[in-house]
């Protein structure tokens, strides 16, 4: 099916899913924003929303911009998706019930004790890396740490954990078109899916983790057994890759901004602000779709019903109208609060406090041990449909004297 753009909307030829735009997305994102808050992307058959205000509007208006059409380019209601819809692909009232079940499990009271449990592993990894002086942030830190602490917190068995990263890779790449990147991610799809699904079953979860707590909600009559399995699946797929990318991107920002590292080293309580600003500048989850339920006007552009809008989180988080003329720089003094890296509104990331905690602990552990950090080679961007991150990020550190 081809959808024609609404009258009067600026049409752009850019392909946000081309390898070049993935490797270096920001020139294209600037072009999109400058062409207007809403434009038509011919290659995608979707409206591009790149202004902060408009992205915020779409995120918070769940009635007009629904999620049940899927976060990818196809409408999964007409054209069944590759898996049963997740909480991310649902609207109220069903969404609210599942969301309530999840926030009953992940909330300040349940996240607080993680700080202590997550600190030791962060310090151990930091000790080892600082002793080596040179390491790859992605392979040696970002991919290691979350996998060491998060699956335990959910309570899944040791066996099959190697499927977590490839599975997350599938889930997120499927929010883009069925291109080569997608095909590559889905090469062993059945195997990964089956392993993850096994881990979501009550009998395979230990009694102490978040997974078991989600299943408790079935006993409470809040959700069905099927929904519980889907919610545990959502935790597993959303809770690993994004944090891996978040750690990598945060350290990329800091390795490129020595002044910021020096400030952090002097005052480690800045760590959480350093994380927030990095999430704004290099948002791990860059783009996804919504589907319109009714015709409407957004940023002065008329959008018909049944259209896909492609939200550019990475563009909104660098919109100079919101963040000022230096929106493209990493500035520890900035008030970055209110960015949309975790989404906003109903679907705002439930695991946000855990993700923030993990990245913060990594930074604190490093800041306590490292005087300077610098790139030891060119970072290699990762080719991914919707996540922004690096395949490799070599750095050199000098231990604290």
């Amino acid at each position: 099916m081809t959808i024609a753009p609404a009258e009067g909307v600026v049409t752009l030829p850019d392909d946000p899913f081309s390898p070049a735009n993935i490797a270096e997305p920001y020139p294209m994102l600037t072009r999109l924003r400058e062409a207007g808050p809403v434009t038509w992307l011919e290659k995608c058959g979707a409206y591009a929303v790149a202004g902060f205000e408009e992205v915020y509007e779409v995120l918070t208006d769940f009635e007009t911009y629904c999620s049940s059409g899927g976060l990818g380019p196809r409408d999964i209601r007409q054209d069944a998706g590759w898996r049963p819809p997740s909480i991310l692909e649902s609207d109220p009232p069903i969404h609210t019930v599942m969301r309530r079940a999840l926030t009953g499990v992940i909330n300040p009271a349940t996240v607080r004790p993680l700080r202590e449990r997550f600190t030791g592993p962060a310090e151990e990894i930091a000790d080892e890396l600082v002793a080596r002086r040179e390491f790859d942030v992605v392979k040696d830190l970002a991919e290691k740490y979350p996998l060491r602490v998060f699956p335990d917190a959910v309570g899944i068995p040791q066996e099959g954990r190697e499927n977590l990263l490839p599975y997350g890779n599938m889930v997120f790449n499927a929010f883009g078109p069925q291109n080569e990147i997608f095909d590559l991610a889905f090469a062993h799809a059945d195997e990964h899916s089956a392993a993850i699904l096994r881990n979501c079953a009550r009998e395979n979860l230990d009694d102490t983790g978040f997974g078991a707590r989600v299943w408790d909600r079935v006993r409470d009559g809040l959700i069905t057994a099927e929904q519980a399995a889907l919610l545990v699946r959502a935790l597993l797929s959303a809770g690993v890759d994004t944090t891996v990318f978040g750690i990598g991107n945060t350290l990329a920002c800091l390795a490129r901004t020595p002044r910021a590292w020096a400030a952090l080293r002097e005052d480690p309580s800045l760590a959480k602000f350093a994380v927030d600003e990095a999430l704004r500048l290099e948002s791990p989850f860059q783009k996804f779709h919504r589907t319109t339920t009714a015709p409407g006007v957004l940023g002065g552009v008329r959008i018909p019903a049944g259209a896909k809008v492609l939200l550019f989180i990475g563009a909104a988080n660098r919109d100079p109208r919101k963040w000022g003329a230096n929106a493209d720089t990493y500035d520890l003094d900035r008030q970055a609060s209110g960015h949309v890296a975790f989404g906003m509104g109903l679907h705002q990331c439930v695991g946000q406090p855990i993700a923030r905690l993990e990245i913060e602990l990594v930074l604190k552990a490093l800041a306590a041990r490292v005087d300077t950090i610098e790139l030891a080679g060119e970072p290699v961007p990762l080719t991914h449909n919707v996540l922004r991150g690096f395949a490799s990020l070599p750095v050199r550190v000098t231990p604290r004297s």
Partner: protein
Amino acid sequence: MGGLSARADRRGVVPRTREVIAERVDRVADGVVSLVLVTPDGSPFQPWEPGAHIDVHLGGQYVRQYSLCSSPKDLSHLRVAVLDVPGSRGGSRWIHRNVRPGDTLEISEPRNNFPVRDSRKYLFLAGGIGITPIIPMIERAAEAGRDWRLVYGGRSRAGMAFAERLVDEYGDRVDIVAEDERGRMDLAGVLAMPRAHMLVYACGPGGMLSAVEELCMGWPPGSLHTERFAATALGPGSVAEPFEVELARSGKTVSVPTDRTILEAVEDVGVRVLSSCRQGLCGTCETPVVSGEPEHRDAVLTQDDQDTGATMMICVSRAAAGCGRLVLDL
């Protein structure tokens, strides 16, 4: 004798009381009288926000809460409407029997259990005398140009206070559902589809509110706000009053006016706090409380955490009634 007298309630909060004159006592519907209260010296009342109520001390015997249904813009008087509940424990009946124009009454300053958050759209649901706190809310929403609708149910038009006046003033936005004409309010129909950016404010009898709560299960957290009419007799509630916040670590003290959040007030003096949703939904702005009692308005803390009061979400929560000063670990 005028002036203030004090009596501590169950949480040790001391509500101030004052004497007022019932300037007018009007029958505004079957079984409902409206009292217009003025100060003895004609001085204006303290500012209050929609949703506020006053305690009325009745002949040294009862204390009853009544929502204010006058306009917060006109502080020359306060108005409450009282339903005579046959067979009740007597507070309302006492007013109906005893209060005559010119009589003196003892009341508390306005307090608020039912504050209204700013939003683009409102759905107001009122059952019977539950219309009273809704009236100033509607005035506020209408003035701010917000999209709003009222569904007001009661047994018969004759018993529904202010029904006619609301229709005259606001027309189509008001839907009067008198049971003897149209049957009961179709709450299921009205609440069937969760709406974006719409807050639901409901006040009325317990049965109606339970139905509303059930029907709002699928609405986004934080959409529904209720005041149980009978339950207003309990709990000190929050105060739509300014209060002070002391920042223990930075040594600063900021005052938080009624129309600003603690978070905004703290940011104004250059103290950094991480926040994200700014609606009490994500937990990012969680702040340890050193002393003082918070009035929690977030949707993330567990009941236990709220009761303990060790931390609070400063993007929405405030100081509890009678707690003029919060000390935060900032």
